[in-house]
């Protein structure tokens, strides 16, 4: 069952164009959304969530169009744009107290459980948390209303190796419980540990969207390399000599 279907997504900015991005995310899978800095990952995720307005394209969650069912869809998804960066001076307890009023299916026991797993202290403020702990707080808020789909924008950026490992472990744990995850990153080693599918964009264009194994096999067959990093570098790298030839240094 398709949890998220994105087709023909376009977004035009004066200096950047997201061009015809399409992919489908099936239930219970982890999709890594990769691309170098500025490739359009955040623009795509924000368009999917109607935070920015796409110039064209269709977005469907759980078989429903986004705009007419925005409230209902947002009840069933959780978004974390990296670390929590709202209400940094308010206590976590207060943030939870307000946030939970918006979700009829808020599970206080699950919230407590995730707070304990992530070692979050409700008497602290987000400003007092490390980057990794802020990501964990964002995940706790998303998971406490039993989000069926987590959309995470570079959740592992800025985390130390241990926190990254813990977070990736949490993704696998959630996947085993039927949660679907779409997360963007440019840290390819994270994906090799947990992703089932890869959607890869470069310069606002879709390069690939397929199962991880198929992507890796194709990359190897095309002689791009045998790791995600090598394949990505092979697609993206332009030598200084190429630039020099274009701009006449």
């Amino acid at each position: 069952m398709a949890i998220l279907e994105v087709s023909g997504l376009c977004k035009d900015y004066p200096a950047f164009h997201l061009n015809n991005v399409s992919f489908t995310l099936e239930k219970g899978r982890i999709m890594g959304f990769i691309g170098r800095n500025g490739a359009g990952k955040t623009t795509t995720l924000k368009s999917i969530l109607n935070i920015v307005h796409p110039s064209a394209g269709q977005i469907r969650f759980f078989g429903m169009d986004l705009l007419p069912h925005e409230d209902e869809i947002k009840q069933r998804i959780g978004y974390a744009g990296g670390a929590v960066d709202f209400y940094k001076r308010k206590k976590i307890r207060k943030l939870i107290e307000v946030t939970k009023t918006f979700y009829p299916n808020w599970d206080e026991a699950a919230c407590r459980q995730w707070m304990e797993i992530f070692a979050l202290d409700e008497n602290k403020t987000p400003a007092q948390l490390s980057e990794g702990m802020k990501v964990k707080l964002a995940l706790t808020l998303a998971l406490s209303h039993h989000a069926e789909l987590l959309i995470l924008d570079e959740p592992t950026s800025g985390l130390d190796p241990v926190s990254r490992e813990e977070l990736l472990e949490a993704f696998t744990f959630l996947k085993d419980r039927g949660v679907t995850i779409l997360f963007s990153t440019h840290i390819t080693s994270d994906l090799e540990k947990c992703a089932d599918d890869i959607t890869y964009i470069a310069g606002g264009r879709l390069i690939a969207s397929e199962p991880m194994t198929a992507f890796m096999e194709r990359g190897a067959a095309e002689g791009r390399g045998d790791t995600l990093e090598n394949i990505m570098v092979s697609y993206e790298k332009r030598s200084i000599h190429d630039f020099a030839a274009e701009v006449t240094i």
Partner: protein
Amino acid sequence: MSKLFHKEISLCTQAVTWGLLAAVLLTLIPGYPILVGTFLVCLGIFHSFQYTNESNDILYSVLLPVRKRDVVRAKYVKVLLFEGIAFVITAVLTVIRMTLMADAGPYVTNPMMNATPYFLACVLLVFTAFNVLFVGGFFKTAWKVGMPFLRFGIAAFLLVAIAEVLHHIPGLTFLNEPGGAWLELQLVMLVLAALIFAAATWISCKVSIKRFEKIDL
């Protein structure tokens, strides 16, 4: 909507916003441009909007399972709550000045604007300017607060100046009469100001909703 309003009060409203409601007590000070108290109430509400920006409240709000238009409405309802509280207290103080303290020396010889229904009408016009120029201006971008507040500040300064000058002009001295034969006319002016306030705020809210739906956050 009620949940968003609860969020507005719990997370977005700063102590200074509540504290500056006390500025309505300036209504009791003779020899002072009492309409400035209304400006200070608006300054307190402005601080909440500034805090809203610092806290990334708009992004937090649109990610909640709510309609975008309700995010705008909740902000307007919060503004109306503070304006309503300020207006009711100001009205009570005005009635006290016009009745129990009508013969107090400093008020009888007061060269500045008296607390009258005309003053209350001016209070509503300052709030109208705030709702249209500041709140409406904020929702052009949902993050810029400086320029909209500057526009409101200029408008408020002009309103205070004009309101203070008008009652010194021959033929318009009735505007400063605390009661008597001119009370009915002043009450008509108050009703007119209330209608302008309601209509302008409603239109401002509608326009803000349309703008907010189109903004890329």
